């Protein structure tokens, strides 16, 4: 019962905050609300026995990505942003596309069939800690994707530098 109450609070907060994030006029308000949203998602991960991901969620999303967003918002003309129209001209079309997707998703979740279960249950995670189990799986079964991921991050570093570099006049 207490689990359902906690889930109910988290779900209400997540949905309410995300609606606020996409409707605020001031982008700084959006980013700060997004920060609170990420903390709620981290708590949701804790209820799903994923402590390591909860920490990563706070460190990477709240600590790195949102600070990056705030730096870019410094570029904006906030005074202009507070008076111009928030939505594109054909916003009803976008909203109806999202609602159509929602109907499709509701129809598909009713025919959900559970797949075969794995062998790492809650008891193993509790006896060995989540981080240790995650590390074992990550560095054995998923070693190759992990290596590819390092290339993705390298491309991101080089790409960000190349995109934002000013061309020197020679």
């Amino acid at each position, binding site marked *: 019962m207490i689990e359902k109450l906690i889930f109910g609070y988290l779900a209400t907060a997540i949905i309410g905050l995300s609606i606020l994030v*996409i409707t605020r006029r001031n982008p700084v308000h959006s980013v700060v609300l997004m920060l609170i949203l990420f903390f709620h998602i981290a708590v949701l991960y804790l209820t799903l026995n994923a402590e390591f991901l909860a920490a990563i969620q706070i460190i990477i999303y709240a600590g790195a990505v949102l600070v990056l967003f705030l730096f*870019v918002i410094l570029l*904006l003309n906030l005074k202009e942003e507070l008076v111009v129209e928030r939505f594109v001209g054909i916003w009803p079309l976008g909203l109806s596309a999202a609602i159509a997707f929602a109907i499709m998703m509701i129809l598909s979740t009713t025919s959900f069939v559970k797949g075969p279960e794995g062998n790492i249950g809650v008891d193993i995670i509790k006896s060995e800690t989540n981080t240790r189990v*995650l590390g074992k799986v990550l560095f054995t079964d998923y070693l190759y994707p992990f290596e590819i991921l390092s290339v993705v*991050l390298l491309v991101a*570093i080089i790409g960000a530098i190349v995109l*934002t570099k000013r061309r020197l006049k020679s």
Partner: protein
Amino acid sequence: MVPLNWYIWLSGALFIIGMAGFLMRRNIIIMFISIELMLNAVNISLVSFGNFLKDMAGQVLTLFVIAVAAAEAAIGLGIIIALFRNKATVHVDEMNEMKG
């Protein structure tokens, strides 16, 4: 025990809100924030599936999604800076050079 479907519906609702924000807003930074919302929705569904099917693959994939999201944010914000330098606007409906 909270049923799996509740998590899936929460994830779907968050994804749809992110999708609506992406399609409706003019400001390109809010559009990027909506993309982050959608990625987080997918993460919630992956972690809940991993927990309910007793499999670690969900959490490993979530770790990959978070890393790709960080790379995507860096590249995307670089594109926004380059765009702002050339066009001095962040509104997507004012970028219509390729309109026939």
